[in-house]
């Protein structure tokens, strides 16, 4: 009978441990509990439970740790300082798939906060184990591990290099080909994080054959997957002309243009970022994009978005127009300039307005024809009213006005010249030079007519005039 009592004691203890760990894991899902848990010293209590005999308790303890570390970086640092990571890494290699998923969750939660924590994870040798787990059969394990790798690689180039050196890239390419959508998405986002930092890393990713698989997945109807795939392709293409050409050779045009019509805003943004990164390198690539009707699609996309989603599209138009005057003319006939002036007047944010003004400048600067096309849409007064945000507006006016009399006339009749006179700038500054050059385009009487206080000077002359009394 006493044996039964003894065993009962052990059972009670086990039940208590299980209940504790499950309750803690549940409480950790709500942020307001986490402060209390932290003050109650939950970390030191969870730590010995990681080595518990019962597998369920182990797994739930790891899960609770992951949720706590996910919340803020103090707790993540406490995880690192408490020497939990080596234990996790060791068990990651041995245990079953639930444990692996939970341990990968902890690593991901710790690695996401700062580069130092990610470096700590790399230092305790987690990368090799993680890469081994990427070959596991269960797609949930692969997803968790890939997410952890992604969080590590996100911070800077050295960490990405460490991830690549551990041999993760070929396994990630295999993960992309798996049928589960979530796994594909995570693998695409990791590839995007890796190739973001430097051209060599992007080249490594390309050498493993990523581009073909990514290009195939553009047609997938899932919106989140498309976001990551387009972002990955954009990060690859941005580094050099060769990489951009390889991305284009994967026959993404004109399929990518359908992504510009997607309902999801971020898919549109990433697609326009991709097209911008391709267009900015050489005139030939921009020509390719124009020939496939990309400019029209981007202009429609700009029209249908708001806010910072528009920014890559606007910059793309600027890059295309900057390469040569033929391309700038192509942008003009695709009805780009009215759309850009609408953006300029609508957008509240300064940096978007600056980008729009820059794009308009690039379009208008080549020849008088281009300048007239820009001036006709009455953007110049709008540009003037934004003189605070960008020097490019003055640049545009200086280039526009000497060329074309019609542009000059339009400038005057739309009140632009008046505004220019009203700008008080310090003599000798760049602004004053621009204002002088604008004033030089017009005869002197007109300049005086529009300068402020002209009526006062006229009245003064009347006062000082002695009438000829006959």
């Amino acid at each position, binding site marked *: 009978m006493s044996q039964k009592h003894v065993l009962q004691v052990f059972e009670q203890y086990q039940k208590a441990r299980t209940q504790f760990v499950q309750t803690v894991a549940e409480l950790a899902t709500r942020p307001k509990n986490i402060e209390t848990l932290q003050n109650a010293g939950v970390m030191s209590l969870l730590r010995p439970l990681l080595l518990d005999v019962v597998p369920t308790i182990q797994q739930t303890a790891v899960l609770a740790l992951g949720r706590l570390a996910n919340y803020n970086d103090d707790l993540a640092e406490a995880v690192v300082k408490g020497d939990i990571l080596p234990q996790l890494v060791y068990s990651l290699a041995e245990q079953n798939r639930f444990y692996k998923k939970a341990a990968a969750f902890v690593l991901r939660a710790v690695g996401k906060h700062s580069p130092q924590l990610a470096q700590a994870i790399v230092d305790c040798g987690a990368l090799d184990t993680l890469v081994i787990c990427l070959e596991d059969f269960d797609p949930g394990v692969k997803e968790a591990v890939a997410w952890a790798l992604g969080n590590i690689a996100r911070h800077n180039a050295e960490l990405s290099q460490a991830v690549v050196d551990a041999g993760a890239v070929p396994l990630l390419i295999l993960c992309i080909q798996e049928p589960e959508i979530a796994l594909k998405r995570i693998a695409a986002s990791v590839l995007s994080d890796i190739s973001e930092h430097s051209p060599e890393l992007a080249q490594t990713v390309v050498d493993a054959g990523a581009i073909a698989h990514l290009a195939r997945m553009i047609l997938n109807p899932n919106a989140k997957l498309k976001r990551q795939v387009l972002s990955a392709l954009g990060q690859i293409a941005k580094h050099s002309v060769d990489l951009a050409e390889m991305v284009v050779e994967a026959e993404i045009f*004109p399929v990518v*243009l*359908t992504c*510009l*019509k997607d309902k999801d805003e971020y898919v549109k943004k990433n697609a326009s970022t991709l097209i911008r990164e391709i267009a900015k390198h050489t005139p030939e690539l921009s020509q390719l994009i*124009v*020939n*496939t*009707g*990309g*400019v*029209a*699609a981007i202009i*429609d996309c700009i029209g249908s978005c708001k806010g910072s989603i528009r920014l890559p599209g606007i910059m793309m138009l600027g890059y295309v127009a900057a390469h040569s005057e*033929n391309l700038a*003319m*192509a942008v003009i*006939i*695709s009805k780009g300039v009215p759309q850009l002036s609408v953006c300029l007047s609508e957008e509240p944010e300064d940096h978007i307005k600056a980008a729009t003004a820059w794009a308009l400048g690039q379009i208008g600067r080549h020849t008088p024809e281009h300048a007239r096309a820009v001036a006709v849409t009455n953007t110049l007064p709008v540009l003037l009213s934004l003189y605070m945000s960008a020097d490019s507006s003055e640049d545009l006016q200086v280039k526009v006005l000497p060329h074309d009399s019609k542009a000059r006339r339009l400038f005057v009749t739309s009140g632009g010249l008046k505004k220019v006179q009203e700008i008080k700038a310090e003599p000798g500054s760049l602004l004053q030079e621009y204002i002088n050059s604008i004033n030089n385009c017009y005869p002197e009487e007109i300049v005086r007519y529009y300068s402020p206080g002209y009526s006062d000077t006229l009245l003064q002359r009347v006062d000082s005039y002695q009438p000829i009394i006959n």
Partner: protein
Amino acid sequence: MATLARLQARSTALAQQYYFRNSVVDAFRKKENDAAVKIQSWFRGCRVRAYIRYLHRIATTVQKWWRGYLGRQHCQLIVEIAYCALKMNVYNAMAVRIQRWWRGYRIRKHCFDYIYLKAYLRAVERTNDTVRKALDEFAEIREREEKEAALKREKKKKDYQARKMHYLLSTKQIPGVYNSPFRKEPDPWELRLRQAKPWTRKKLRGQLQRPTSLTSWLACTSARSFPCSEILPPINRKQCQGPFRDITEVLEQRYRPLEPTLRVAEPVNGVKEAREEFRRQEKARNVQDNMFLPFASYHKNEKYIPSVHLWSKCGSSSYGCQHFRDENPKKWVSGKDFQTVLPSFDLFSTYGKSYSKAGQIL
């Protein structure tokens, strides 16, 4: 002596006088000397100049003749050179003209072909329009597809709900929940319920319902033991001619699995098997094999009272149960009884399964 003394007295002054007289002349002497020298030098100069002029004249003449001689030598050469230079200038001018035209032509045709540029821009515009239209269509198609998918999902949900709520269907006696008698028309749900099939628990797919003996041929070929797949048409089917029924109906009819009649589906030795089955069950059930006998002494003194039906002669007549014909030999026409010549036919085994819909009650 006196003169001597006089002379000696004057000698001292003599020297001075002598010196003065000479020196007075000396002043003039220099002047006169200079004048003479000047005159002489001028004269000499004149002579020499005349001589030099003469020499110049001579030399000029000689040189003139010599130069003329040389010039006449090289005259031809110079004329030729001048002529060539003239020609070369003309050629250069012409060549410049040609090159100018050619450069203009080349630029206009190849480097900055205005016509081509215009054509290119028009082509770009056309491509843009096509792309815009294509993208709009694509967006429209996708929206429509999404709407349709949403509608289908709705419909599927409603059908599922209607099947599960089938028991709420109104009957003739009791109007259902959705068919209130105070309404003009039944609720749409009522109509859905009418169209839905009732929801039955599906048997678990894992256990196939096999007949008791798979050894019999009929059982093997029945639909239950073969995996039933969708009706597939044969591969090399010629196009038939004529007014067509719906092809699925035809194929369904043509490739319908065997549905044996009840008479045929039962195995031949059904009775024997049934008996054996019964015996097996008894063996499993019974504790002992002896028949149950009533307690003999309990009913010793009771008399057996047979039932009314067996007691009288008028009991249950076998007419209507065992034979259906009047058995009165006197009324028979011939001496022989009816004989079964043809086997009975199954009248109702093909009910609802024949090809035509003739005779169906609508």
